[in-house]
């Protein structure tokens, strides 16, 4: 039995068709953006994950498994022909191999074989120093930024009454958020590296990056503080607590989760920026790991390798070919993975938090 036609159904008309098509245009725009993002992400994951997966190796000692790409320092790659086969080796391995072959030839009384090797810088080994450097930069700068940012937000939200000074402060925060990152880099170079004579160092990078994310942290913290209901404060004050006691025991504990989750977005930004650390903290290459210092104070005044800067170096300073591509894509993949992880954590935590606090 077929249903009778619905007499109240919308009649197809030109206007309705136009509406539908315009809405489809908007929908297409949205999905085009998403597709572009997915394309970039997918391309790097597809081509980059191979490098990391190929890096896995078993070892004799305790962890039994290690990853040469993640946990070794960058080396030059040598490609040469030996016994009619094409061989690829990292710098150290190549030297050892060459010596052994030459020693063998000497023992047999033959002339030493000639090696015609092409070398590609940074294309062998891994990116361990860059990962370490990035982590150190993020930890230090976020510590500074959170201290300054949370304190500023507490002042703006709890203590300050609307006045001229507060207006200036808010204006400054708003403007600071719009300053290009390269300008922060120039500023950090002029102030920390030259004026304070810290040279290219972790400390200079920390402060430069901290000042850069300050607006993000302040805005996020203020929002979290605002979300704590007024009643909490009034109740505490009515019981005779001082302002600071109120903030310490009745405001901050409830705002802290919010502050931290929103600040994770700031971390993603710190980790992702290259321009501010180019002249303040990053080295193109450094053999020693950061904890390999003579004095404790040297730790703060050393430059480090950093992932974003390493990507810049390997993608612009060395030619593109099948040998260099591995390290380029691999580094980009690891970096994107770290940043994506941070961003996802932030987004998930925030959504969870929004659901959990209900006053």
């Amino acid at each position, binding site marked *: 039995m077929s249903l009778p036609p619905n007499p109240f159904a919308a009649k197809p008309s030109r206007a*309705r068709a136009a*509406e539908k098509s315009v*809405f489809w*245009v*908007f*929908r297409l*725009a*949205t999905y*085009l*953006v*998403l597709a*572009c*993002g997915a394309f*970039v992400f997918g*391309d*790097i994951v597809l081509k980059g994950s191979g490098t990391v997966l190929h890096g896995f190796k078993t070892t004799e000692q305790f962890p039994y498994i290690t990853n040469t790409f993640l946990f070794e320092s960058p080396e030059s790659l040598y490609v040469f022909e030996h016994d009619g086969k094409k061989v690829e080796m990292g710098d150290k391995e190549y030297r050892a191999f060459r010596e052994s072959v030459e020693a063998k030839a000497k023992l047999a009384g033959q002339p030493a074989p000639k090696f015609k090797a092409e070398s590609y810088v940074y294309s062998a080994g891994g990116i361990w120093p860059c990962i370490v450097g990035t982590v150190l930069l993020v930890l230090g700068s976020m510590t500074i930024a959170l*201290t300054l940012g949370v*304190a*500023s937000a507490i*002042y703006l939200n*709890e*203590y300050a009454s609307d006045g001229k*000074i507060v207006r200036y402060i808010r204006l*400054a*925060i*708003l403007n*600071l*958020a*719009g*300053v*290009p*990152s*390269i*300008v922060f*880099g*120039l*500023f950090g170079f*002029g102030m920390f590296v*030259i004026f304070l004579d810290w040279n290219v160092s972790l400390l200079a990078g920390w402060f430069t990056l901290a000042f850069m994310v*300050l607006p993000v942290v*302040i805005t996020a913290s203020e929002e979290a503080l605002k979300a704590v209901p007024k009643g909490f404060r009034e109740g505490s004050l009515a019981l005779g607590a001082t*302002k*600071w006691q109120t903030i310490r025991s009745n405001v901050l504990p409830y705002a802290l989760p919010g502050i931290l989750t929103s600040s994770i977005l700031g971390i993603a930004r710190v*980790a*992702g920026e*290259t*321009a501010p650390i180019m002249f303040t903290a990053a080295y193109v290459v450094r053999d020693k790991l950061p904890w390999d210092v003579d004095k404790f104070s040297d730790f703060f005044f050393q430059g480090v390798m950093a992932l*974003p800067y390493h*990507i*810049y170096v390997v*993608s*612009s300073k060395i030619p*593109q070919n099948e040998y260099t591509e591995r390290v380029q*894509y691999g580094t980009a993949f690891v*970096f*994107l993975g770290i940043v*994506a992880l*941070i*961003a996802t954590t932030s*987004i998930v935590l925030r959504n969870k938090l929004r659901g959990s606090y209900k006053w």
Partner: protein
Amino acid sequence: MSLESAPTIRPFVIEKARTRLFGLTLDECIHAFFGGNAFMAVVVLALITVFLFREGADFFGQNRANLRIYREAGLEYVDYMRQQEKDHTALTRYLFDVRMRTVKYLTGVKGLTMAQTNAQLAAFDDFSSRYGDTVEPVRGIVADLTEVATAIKTKFTVNEDAKEGRRQLLAGGKKDEAAAVAITNLDFKAELAPLVGTLPAFKDASATFAKNLEQVVATVPVLPTPELQSRMLKFQQLTRDYIATFPATIHELETWDYTKPVPFTQSLTAFVFGREWLTASFWQDWYGVIPLLVGSLMVSFIALVLAVPLGVGAAIYVNQIASAREQKLIKPAIEFISAIPSVVLGFFGIAVLGQLLRAISQVAWLDWIPGFPFAERLNALTAGCLLALIAVPTIFTLAEDALNNVPRSFKEASFALGASRLQTVLRIIVPASLSGIVSAVLLGLGRVIGETMVVLLCAGNRIAIPDFTAGLAVVTQPVHTMTGIIAQEMGEVVRGSIHYRALFIVGIVLFSLALLINFLAQKIVRKYRISIG
């Protein structure tokens, strides 16, 4: 009950002594601490300004000295002559372009082989080689004088270095050694004499040059189509115009005076309106911001043209049309895109997008698009596309906020009056939130113009003002940008040199531009916000 036996009533006072630091109670101290931290934002902004100016301020003085020696060593004098030679080269290029078009016509439309084409163009080639040869006398003089002027400049620089060395020795208290430093004061008049002395010879050369040119262009070769022929006639006219400029050049040379002072404003205008950014050259360094500024603006413009429709469209879709489930999916996804680091996008541009766009441009049936096909993998378009991906999340988030702030009653009233959904969205919701959307676009612009890594890696880094005569095809030319030049050259310059200071000045320009954009965005929001009550 007598008074004496009554228990002594103590007045209500807090006896516990308060801890005081610098005369402040603990609470006041905490208050001051937080206030001080909040003030950091202002301090940082002030520090940025101070340090950019501290490093950059000397630029204008140094640039003035740079321009002065340009004049005093006679480089300026030689450049007047060189300009004549350069203009001639530009005309030969025009001629070459006409030849290319003719070849394209002959091989494409007429279907001739390359050998036949060359045979057809024999007369044309003869003409163009004669045309090219006319410049020789002038070229010879310019080449000779270039060496003379460079020698004077080198002498001057050596002298300046010696002076600086002596100053340092004196500062170090080594008087004897300082006295031993040989310094000869340059007598520019005497040094310039051979340079200025060539004027009669140049006049002769110029006259011969003009005569020969007249002779050559008196009869132009005949080309197959009227369109090409009209180009040839235009070339004839251009050459005659060019010859007409000769007396002006001679006049410039006659009235040239090396003692004419270089005013301070010229140092400023040379930067602000300078059309050349040329560093570490053997001849003369120029620090003109125009090519970089134009590059930055062009790349940002391309990015916004792509990002505004997408960003605003997506915001409208998510806020007004999409279902709740779609919203929940799309919003975090776009936020996720904003987290992709710019250096990764830049790498993606080098590794994938550049080649992809070039391959698309070389598809035969897309030939009609201006600028297609292009040969440069890295150009303004590649950078613009990637910057668009950076701008979209910014524009989307802020525009979506603006749309969200439109009160429900607006929508309800519109529906109640019988408007369709489309009418409500386009005529009510979007106009009501227009100020927010415009400021979102502006902030997107601020984000894009300050972006460094993408343009550094993908814009092609050719320091030249793009050729706007190419029409829309200009977007496929490589450019260099303000952010890119700082990132690229800062690592290599000598601290305190004029080049170093110039980069800081570019930084100041960027900084002011960012503040201006921010200011406009805030102003628009405040001024055009509809009162919602």
